[in-house]
């Protein structure tokens, strides 16, 4: 596939921690000690329920804002230490697509200005050159450039807005694309179009992707490997097929069993969850964060934080009582 590079991991996330201060000295522990490596040309899926820290992790990778602790290395370059112009220069290499296709486009700007903005900021080309690149990029994401350029976002459907977002993110030819719930707000038929587009672009442009979603089916669809997060921590990570067929973490199993399958004869799911709420990220439980809802929890889980353990090559899970 791709030529081997010096650094085996193209994107290396090490011990990423994101905390937001609250009044009274308390903190929201959005992400705690999250580590993952993504190879060049690979897609890492990040799943979890709302509040699990997946979006915070994605934004920390984007340095929006930079993480509280930990390292993010892209192609060997440490991003967390970069400031000012150096960071601005580095940003060309990693771009992001957001959830809300309409809200992520400025309603007062034309599509031409929106897609040209990254080029303008980076000071690339003359106005005409930029315009030509915008047109080419819009065609690449499946929009009619002639018709689209001078219009404003509200004249487009959600799916088309997301194509515009993709065009904006890719116009600087980044190496890494972070997709934060990029298709969650779209209807299924449109979602399929955008997912296919992302897959095509990834192949054509050799992109490395970090794909965040709450939808397990969507994540499996685009990912080579998948990481599951709960309350800011990594529960389990494995290649997609292994995680969906042979997960060992009770939370992953629960999540998978809750997915409603579009098949009336699918076996009724057995939800093995202790009813209850996601604990507060301000005051996470001691030990394993999932223990308050886990049917297999023991005293050990309350006293000791389970460490990530190798289950098989490339399959890691953080649980004292893994399923088999």
């Amino acid at each position, binding site marked *: 596939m791709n030529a081997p590079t010096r650094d085996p991991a193209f994107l290396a996330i090490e011990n990423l921690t994101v905390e937001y201060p609250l009044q009274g000295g308390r903190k929201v522990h959005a992400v705690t000690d999250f580590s993952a490596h993504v190879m060049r040309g690979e897609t890492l899926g990040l799943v979890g329920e709302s509040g699990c820290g997946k979006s915070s992790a994605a934004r920390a990778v984007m340095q929006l804002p930079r993480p509280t602790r930990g390292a993010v290395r892209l192609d060997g370059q440490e991003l967390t230490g970069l400031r000012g112009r150096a960071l601005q220069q580095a940003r060309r290499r990693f771009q992001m697509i957001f959830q809300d296709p309409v*809200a*992520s486009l400025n309603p007062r700007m034309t599509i031409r200005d929106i897609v040209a903005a990254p080029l303008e*900021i980076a000071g690339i080309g003359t106005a005409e050159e930029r315009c030509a690149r915008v047109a080419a990029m819009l065609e690449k994401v499946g929009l009619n450039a002639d018709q689209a350029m001078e219009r*404003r976002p*509200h004249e487009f459907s959600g799916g088309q807005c997301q194509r515009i977002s993709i065009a904006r993110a890719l116009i600087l030819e980044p190496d890494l694309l972070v997709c934060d719930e990029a298709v969650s707000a779209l209807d299924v038929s449109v979602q399929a179009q955008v997912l296919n587009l992302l897959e095509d672009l990834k192949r054509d442009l050799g992109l490395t992707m970090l794909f965040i979603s709450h939808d397990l089916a969507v994540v499996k669809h685009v990912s080579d490997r998948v990481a599951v997060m709960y309350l800011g921590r990594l529960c389990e990570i494995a290649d997609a097929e292994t995680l969906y067929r042979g997960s060992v973490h009770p939370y992953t199993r629960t999540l998978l069993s809750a997915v409603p399958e579009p098949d009336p004869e699918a076996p009724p799911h057995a939800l093995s969850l202790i009813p209850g709420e996601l604990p507060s990220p301000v005051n996470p439980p001691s030990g394993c964060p999932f223990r308050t809802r886990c049917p297999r929890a023991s005293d050990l889980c309350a006293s000791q934080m389970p460490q990530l353990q190798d289950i098989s090559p490339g399959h890691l899970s953080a649980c004292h009582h893994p399923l088999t």
Partner: protein
Amino acid sequence: MADVTSSRQGTQTEDKPQIDMNMVAIAMHRRSRRLGLYFWIPMIWLVIVAVACIFAPFWGLPPADEIDWVYIQSPPVEGHPLGTDNLGRDLLSRIVWGGRVSLTVGFAAPFIGVGLGLILGLIAGYYRGWADEVIGILIDAWLAIPGLVVLLLFSVVFGGSLFMVCVSLGLLFIPTAARITRAATLNYAGREFVLAAKAMGASDFRIMRKEIFPNIIWPLIAFILIDIPIAIVIEGALSFLGLSVKAPTPSWGGIIAEGREVLSTYPHIAMYPTLVMFVTVLSFNLVGDAIRRRLADVREGAI
């Protein structure tokens, strides 16, 4: 089956009246968005006043400070359509020239206030943190000083300069303008398109100028529309007290003040400028309301 027959009926009757229904719908929609007479009548008045004041030198009116010794304190006569004042000066001419002062203050003061408030509000709302706190404290401190004291102080120090009247009034509009800007900025600073701009490495200045400013301009325009009549009224009150532009420069408040002395004998001297000012301020309010209602539609994304 009942549903089958009914839908068949539906498809048959649909074709012809369809176009009519569309026209009806468009008409209904237009009607709900029409500006109406409450906008157009005051608007016409404002245009008349504005044209009269802006092109005051071209109407062949006698100079506002020229004394006609033949007619002193005269009711309307040939050559003086609104009569003359205590000193025999042409009242129409004085009202037109005085309108220049009122309108200048009416427009300049809100723009000065909103301009400065915009900068403060943008900084406070975009950067949050200590910048927000410092600006908040400054504004609170500024609000603690009574407006009248500020106006009196400016009048005493800079006495009579039209520019300084505009500035002193403009300063009074800053706190509200800054707060409106801050709230609107807060609303947009967290939007994903601002985050997207940050992700592409846009500078803070660029984000404020290109991403946030075009979105918050509408509430500020609405605010200016409210402030124009307020500024005109305050300027009128200042002139009335003799704290605005110096005599003999006419201003509406000043003419009313002069007319007050002879109110019982020659009521027309105070009445005409009062009437003009009243109708003008009312018109600004009515027009402003109509425009603000339309701006609300614009902000809902209809443009």
